[in-house]
């Protein structure tokens, strides 16, 4: 999706939403009910009816976008209407409340609606902003290509490491195996790299070894740099240098992958709030309407 959703059909739905909102606000300011404004005046019932109809229409978008055979408008048009009418809904329903809030079912429905709209607004923001960030980050690589690239880098690291005597092979194997990005929703959203690596302790063969944190390949690069600084053999120095350059490339690739996963997660996370809360809102809306007329 790109900005054309907002500009769909010459912003037809923007004008519709604006007309609805302006009409609602005008009617509310003109209307002087005998009592404090509330949902039970003729204007209150009208605004409530329009609001409920809008909510149902917006919920239908979830069905329409899955009905590939439907010819009832384009999905693009539905989404454009979904965004604009959803914003108008906030105004219409706020006027419907008459700014009376309390600890009750009615305000619960209103609060849920606000959360759904807020998460949706974040979704619009995400769809306008993140795709650019996504393509800026990954260049012209797909994620699949990045993963393949990572695997081939790992092979080259292994080959280079096994040529060097000493612990290099073990360290590089553990570096490969203990690389960990993503995993949980929180890790994805935070772009966390919780990789580890096992490096021999500096005490030599008699010392212990342990797994240490290795975000962005930092620990393994440090270890390699340490080895490089102690190297007196020209061949070894060259081999370690080659290995370091491979690991540095690996670091950049991992960073790209992590960032890619992070942006994608932010691009999608709001839907995990938006969709369940929409269904909660539907239940609260039904409860609100039935309760109001049950005790009319």
């Amino acid at each position, binding site marked *: 999706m790109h900005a054309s959703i907002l500009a769909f059909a010459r912003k037809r739905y923007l004008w519709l939403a604006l007309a609805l909102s302006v009409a609602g606000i005008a009617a509310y300011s003109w209307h*002087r009910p*005998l*009592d*404090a404004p*509330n*949902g*039970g005046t003729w204007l209150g019932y009208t605004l409530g009816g329009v609001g409920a109809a809008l909510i149902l229409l917006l919920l239908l978008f979830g069905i329409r976008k899955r009905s590939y055979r439907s010819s009832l408008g384009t999905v693009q048009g539905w989404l454009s209407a979904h965004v604009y009418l959803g914003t108008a809904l906030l105004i219409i329903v706020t006027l419907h409340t008459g700014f*009376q809030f*309390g600890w*009750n*079912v*009615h305000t*619960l429905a209103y609060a*849920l609606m606000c959360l759904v709209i807020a998460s949706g607004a974040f979704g619009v923001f995400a769809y306008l902003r993140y795709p650019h960030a996504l393509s800026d980050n990954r260049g012209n690589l797909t994620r699949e290509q990045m*993963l393949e690239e990572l695997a081939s880098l790992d092979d080259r690291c292994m080959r280079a490491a096994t040529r060097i005597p000493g612990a290099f092979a*073990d360290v590089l*194997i*553990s570096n490969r*195996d*203990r*690389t*960990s*990005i*993503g*995993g*949980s*929703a929180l890790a*994805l959203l935070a772009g966390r790299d*919780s*990789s580890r690596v*096992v490096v021999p302790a500096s005490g030599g*063969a*008699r010392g*212990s*070894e*342990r*797994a240490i944190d290795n975000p962005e390949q930092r620990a393994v690069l440090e270890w390699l740099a340490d080895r490089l600084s102690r190297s007196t053999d020209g061949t070894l120095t060259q081999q370690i240098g080659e290995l370091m350059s491979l690991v540095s490339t690996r670091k950049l690739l991992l960073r790209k*992958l992590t960032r890619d*996963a992070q942006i*994608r*997660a932010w691009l*999608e*996370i709001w*839907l*995990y709030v938006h*969709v*369940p809360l929409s*269904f*909660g809102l539907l*239940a*609260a809306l039904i*409860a*609100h309407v*039935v*309760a*109001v*007329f*049950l*005790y*009319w």
Partner: protein
Amino acid sequence: MRALIRFLSRGAAGTVEQRDRTFAGEAITLGRATDQVLHLRDRRVELEHARIFLRGDRILISSAAIAGVTVNGAVCRDAALRPGDVVAIGSNTLRFFAPPPDFDVAFSFELDAAARVTEAARERPVLDLAATRMAKRPWAWILFIAIGAACLIVPALGMKEEGLGGTLRARGLPNDGWWISGALSPAHQNIGTACESCHALPFVRVRNQECLACHAPTLHGHGSAGLDHLRAERCTACHVEHNEPTTLVRRDARVCADCHRDLARVVAEGIEVQPATDFVALHPEFRVALTLPTKQGPLVEQRMRLDSAAGQERSGLAFPHDVHLDPAGVKSPEGKVVMACGDCHQPEEGGGRMQPIAMERHCASCHRLDFEPADPERTVPHGDAAGVLRTLLEYYSARYLEEYPDPHATSRPERLAARPGVELTAAQRTRALERARTKALATARDLFERRTCHQCHQVTAATAEDGSPTWIVAPTMLARRWMPKAHFSHERHSTALTECSTCHSAADSQAASDVLMPGIATCRECHGGSAVAATPAANLVPSDCALCHFFHDPDSERWVSNP
């Protein structure tokens, strides 16, 4: 614990390469997580699968994983290990051998075997939310069902089953109280949680009969107009509950202005009506209720506009406020006395209106009713013209019959006859009574026409049927209640207005006929109409109709409000 871990890797040519690692620490952790000491890249292995540790000199393996570990072919959770034992975890194999000196534990671990498995079972990193435990559909269902049950189904069940409803409320569980959109007004607090006492039928608006179960049906007489058509209205058209702010009565001026803009349309012919829509925009000048004499028959109370020439009180009294309020004082039996309004005008209980003026309480201390300088304690009765003469006759008769000497006696024998202990003759008695009557009449004339009554009352001398003189005191007709169609509280005004003279210009009033009630212009100095609420800049009190006026019949005590 010091452990020797021997990694074995098989080369392509069948050669076996071994590398020893040393571990020093509490326990060797084994699992799929990257922070484990022995990292097992196998999906069948849990993140933290097992631990190897020392207890005393025994080597123990303990696994919290469901699959457990296999020691020498037997699946178990805990086992003691000895050299020669083989432990299998998933496809990984640990072979224990006798530890060299300085080590507590030693085992070998075949790398290539692990690598073989892990190539096949190698996990792609989880880089999509959809692949994590996040889910939309289950949460959608959970929220839909939970909110639907808590906000609708359970309260509705509690509404049908009274016992269940009570339990739900008592425990704070979902109940129909969650549906309340606003508080009940204080007057209806006693209804409490008995929603059904008003909302008798589901999906039916509250009917008048529910209101009339408690309230008298004659409520809406609306004064004298007797507007029966008001009964056809729904009570809830004006009395709305559960709204905020909580007001049981709609105070909006439009409720009144609906009819009062053009009252002639709705009231019966012959009833005088004045249009009114708002205290400032359109409201007639105040009318005071004056008790006026008619040519014949009883006195009637008429409401006269303050600004009309007829707006004069005809109380039948002479009372100059200015004389009484003279800052230099007013004459009294005890000399000059400076009076204040509050000496006579005292508020009723509650501070709303003023108590009626009474001669005995408010005037008599100065306006004394004594008649005989020699006997200042004796007074004539007030409010009883015939009784005045009777009192005088009785007083002087008794005195002339008993007293000695008779000051009016002309001859010596008569003076002698009147001395104490001597019975008067019949002729003497007749003469004494005649003299007493002459004295009484003279005193009465003095009291009525010159000295006492005349000061305040309009007195006319007349002749009774028997030919004797008599006096007629014009009836006093003080206003009982100046503005009976509005309620007013002096107390409520006393915080802002401390001087009576702000509204009542009594100090300049020379005649009792002056009506000292303030006109609408005076009230408008502080009271704005209902529109004031929207523009508070004018520093006026927003005043809707109900601030001063009743809707319900003011004679029905229960509904007289005095906010």
